[in-house]
């Protein structure tokens, strides 16, 4: 596609092609949108991705099974825990490895904390894209505490590398449980405060309600997953419907969009489903901390990981929806093929279909509500 800064399509200058990105604060990374506009109205927005392609899948074929774990962090660095977990589960399925209960619980705890951190960024940057700066700072402030907790757990604040094939890397540090519970008490109050601060603010609701509606059949057809799919009213969550790890043991609700302020599947639904999910994550962490089993946190794993030839798919519910790892083994110490299916990739694929008729400013709301993370699109 021809890349131009700006091109006028009609003599009166109303119709033009506009480059939105790749360096634009509301693109959440490096993505380019070729926007065909007629005045303020978008005729079509075509996403151009690939700026952050780091060939992570090719690296997976070269570095051996345990060696790939730190690279999975970079698939989605806002929610790295899930990529860790998805890859670990896929390889464990290949090895037919049972992991100890304590490891499963620790995985659930770390993942749900990571979901809170990721959703805080999602809703925070969304308010900022719409034009309210303060709520973003509130979100990031809470996320700092989550980062502190995860740092105490595994030593890293962003690229965690916490999960291992066969379990997790470290047990809970001393006093961590009490610290986490204290934070969750505070966090539940914070969610109410956040709703009062911004969620039901009249201007904010008017900017989002009824904008960029994605009906459920369209969402399924384009392969939307996770909060974006549930925002469209599809009641599906891998943690509840195809449970893995420790999730069968927890009780939690699955929030589904139902036109909270406008139409089902609009930007506000996708936003508010994330707010509600944080509350559920907080519940899950509490339950997991209360029922945390004693024992080993790492299974007996052979020193050289060499699965039998075969293939396995793992599906986990990441903060950006279903993350699937497809790992093919040829019986050697290196995987023959590692494939990461991510939520942002398909979410970006729907933009071209939803964009016609939106105002230019609403495109920002659409991208923010889909919560795409550029490295996860490009891998």
């Amino acid at each position: 596609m021809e890349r131009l800064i700006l091109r006028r399509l009609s003599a009166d200058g109303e119709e033009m092609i506009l480059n939105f990105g790749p360096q634009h604060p509301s693109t959440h990374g490096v993505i380019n949108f070729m926007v065909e506009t007629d005045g303020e109205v978008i005729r079509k927005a075509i996403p151009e991705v690939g700026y952050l392609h780091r060939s992570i899948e090719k690296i997976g074929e070269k570095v051996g099974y345990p060696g790939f774990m730190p690279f999975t962090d970079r698939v989605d660095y806002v929610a790295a825990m899930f990529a860790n977990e998805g890859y670990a589960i896929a390889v464990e399925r290949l090895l037919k490895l049972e992991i100890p209960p304590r490891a499963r619980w620790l995985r659930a705890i770390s993942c749900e904390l990571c979901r809170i951190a990721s959703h805080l960024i999602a809703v925070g940057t969304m308010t900022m894209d719409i034009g309210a700066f303060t709520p973003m700072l509130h979100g990031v402030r809470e996320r700092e505490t989550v980062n502190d907790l995860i740092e105490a757990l595994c030593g890293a604040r962003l690229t965690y590398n916490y999960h291992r094939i066969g379990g997790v890397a470290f047990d809970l540090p001393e006093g961590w449980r009490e610290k986490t519970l204290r934070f969750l008490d505070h966090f539940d109050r914070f969610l109410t405060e956040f709703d009062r601060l911004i969620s039901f603010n009249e201007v904010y609701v008017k900017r989002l309600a009824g904008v960029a509606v994605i009906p459920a059949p369209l969402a399924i057809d384009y392969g939307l997953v996770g909060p974006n799919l549930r925002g469209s009213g599809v009641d599906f969550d891998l943690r509840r419907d195809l449970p893995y790890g420790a999730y069968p043991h927890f009780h939690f609700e699955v929030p589904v969009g139902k036109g909270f302020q406008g139409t089902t599947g609009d930007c506000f639904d996708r936003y508010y489903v994330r707010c509600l999910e944080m509350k559920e994550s907080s519940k899950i962490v509490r339950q997991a901390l209360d029922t945390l089993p004693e024992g080993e946190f790492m299974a007996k794993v052979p020193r050289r990981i060499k699965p039998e030839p075969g293939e396995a798919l793992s599906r986990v519910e990441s903060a950006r929806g279903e993350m699937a790892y497809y790992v093919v083994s040829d019986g050697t110490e290196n995987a023959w093929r590692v494939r990461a299916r991510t939520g942002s990739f398909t979410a970006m694929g729907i933009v071209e279909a939803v964009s016609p008729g939106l105002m230019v400013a609403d495109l920002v709301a659409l991208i923010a509500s889909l919560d795409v993370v550029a490295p996860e699109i490009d891998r």
Partner: protein
Amino acid sequence: MNTQELHERLRARFGEDVGPLLEEKVDSSCVVLPSRIAEVCRFAKKEVGIELDHLEDLTAVDWPKRAVIEVVYHLFSYRHRHALVLKVLSDRAAPRVPTVEGVWKAANWFEREVFDLFGVEFVGHPDLRRILMPDDWVGHPLRKDYEEAGGYHGISNVRENPLVELRRLDERARAALSPKASPPKPATPPAGPEPA
């Protein structure tokens, strides 16, 4: 339905064009004739009781020894919560597979990615162009025999060992400290591939 039952339903409709269920070690799959894949997928999506409405993943695996590229379809049904894996084997020298973009819109970008990274041509795809690599990139990086070019538009993708550079800086600093010593010869960089 479990995988066996799903497979039987497909066999009953398409006969030998849907291969036997390969009970591979962990996940099982079945191979479909390339010419029938779009039809099989449309049937699997629409047929009451099967309704595999979610194209979870569409990707490929390169097998140079068998001279095939496998295109892999992971399907899932939201209504019935069952899953099926289909595979299409295409000739590695000139891989051509009919598109399933008309069945699931999600296939549009998945197929573009497979085209970009494996060079599989999806016949009938409305907008088949590279998605992750630049438009003028040469080769398909996820193929097993792919070799990197020396660089891209004057941007090198090789560099010398940083330790060599550090050693050179050390020598220069040492020479500056001892003025009596003869002026140091610049260390010759090791012979490496020239950046293109």
